[in-house]
C-alpha cells in the first residue's frame, strides 16, 4: 500500500474511532432513556435505513385487494381495534403510547408516511420496524389481506371525517373504568348530570 493509501486508511480509522467515542459519550449521557425525541440526524438515518431495507420488489407491489366501501369500513374497524393505541384513530399518533415511544409514533397523515408506496406501507405493516414500537402483523394469508386493506385506510387518513372518527371511538379497546368515565362525561355534557364529575386520574 502506498503513502496515500495508508493516509486514507488512517483517516477512516480516526473517523470511526471518533464516531464510536461520540456514540459512547452520547449513550452515557442519555442512557437508554426514551424520554427525548430522536434528533434530525437520527430520524434521517432511520428513514434512509428503512427505505434501503425494504426490498425493491416489495416496494413496487400494488394493492391486490379491490377498494370498496365495505373494505374501507372493515379496515377502519380493524385500525380502531388494533392500531388506535399507538397511532390514534386519525393517525396522528396522539395517544399515551404513541407519544412516549422512541421514536414517537409518526403523524401518518403527513408526507413522510403518505409519500411511501403502497408496497412499502404493506411491507411495514407486515414486517414491523426493528428498534421501534412497530410490531410485525404478518404471518398468514389472511393477515396479508388485512394489511392491504389497512393500506387503503392509511391513504384515507388525511381525509378522515369527524363522523368516521366518532364511529371508531366506539370500537377502541378501552377498560371498564375508561368507559364509565366517558359515559359520565357524556351525561354531564347533555345536562343529565347536575354534578361536575370528580377527579379521577389513572393511566
Amino acid at each position, binding site marked *: 500500500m502506498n503513502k496515500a493509501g495508508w493516509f486514507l486508511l488512517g483517516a477512516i480509522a480516526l473517523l470511526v474511532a471518533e464516531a464510536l467515542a461520540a456514540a459512547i459519550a452520547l449513550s452515557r449521557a442519555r442512557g437508554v432513556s426514551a424520554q427525548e425525541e430522536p434528533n434530525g440526524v437520527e430520524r434521517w438515518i432511520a428513514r434512509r435505513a428503512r427505505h434501503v431495507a425494504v426490498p425493491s420488489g416489495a416496494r413496487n407491489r400494488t394493492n391486490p385487494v379491490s377498494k370498496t366501501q365495505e373494505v374501507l369500513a372493515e379496515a377502519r374497524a380493524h385500525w380502531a381495534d388494533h392500531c388506535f393505541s399507538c397511532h390514534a384513530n386519525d393517525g396522528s399518533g*396522539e*395517544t*399515551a*403510547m*404513541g*407519544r412516549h415511544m422512541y421514536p414517537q409514533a409518526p403523524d401518518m397523515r403527513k408526507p413522510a408516511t403518505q409519500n411511501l408506496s403502497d408496497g412499502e406501507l404493506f411491507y411495514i405493516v407486515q414486517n414491523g420496524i426493528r428498534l421501534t414500537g412497530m410490531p410485525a402483523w404478518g404471518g398468514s394469508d389472511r393477515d396479508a389481506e388485512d394489511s392491504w386493506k389497512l393500506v387503503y385506510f392509511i391513504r384515507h387518513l388525511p381525509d378522515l371525517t*369527524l*363522523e368516521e372518527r*366518532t364511529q371508531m371511538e366506539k370500537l*377502541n379497546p*378501552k377498560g371498564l*373504568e*375508561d368507559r364509565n*368515565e*366517558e359515559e*359520565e*362525561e357524556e351525561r*354531564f*355534557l*347533555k*345536562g343529565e*348530570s*347536575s*354534578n*361536575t*364529575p*370528580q*377527579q*379521577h*386520574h*389513572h*393511566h
Partner: protein
Amino acid sequence: MQLFAHGGFDHVIGTVVKIEYRVLTVKTAKGNVEVKLSEKTEITKNNQKAEIADLKPGTRVVVDVPESSRDKVAHSIKLGVSGTADADAQRARK
C-alpha cells in the same frame, strides 16, 4: 387540574368561564383551570364541528389536553348544553 385521564389525555371537565386571547378558563369542581387553544384544537358539539365563538360562558365542556403536557394546549374540546352545574342543581331543587 380537575380531570379524568384516559386515552392519553387529561380531561378538564366543567363550564366555560371565559375565553380571552385563545386561553380558555374552565370552572371545574376544584376551581378554575386555564387551557390554551391552538389552530389544531378541534371543537365539536354533538359530533359536529363547532367554533370558538360557541365557547360561551356557562357552556359545559370536556377539554382533552395531552397527558403531562407542559403548555396545556387543548387537543380537542367537546361542547355540551349551556348552564352551570350550580344552576342545574337549583333547578332540580325547585
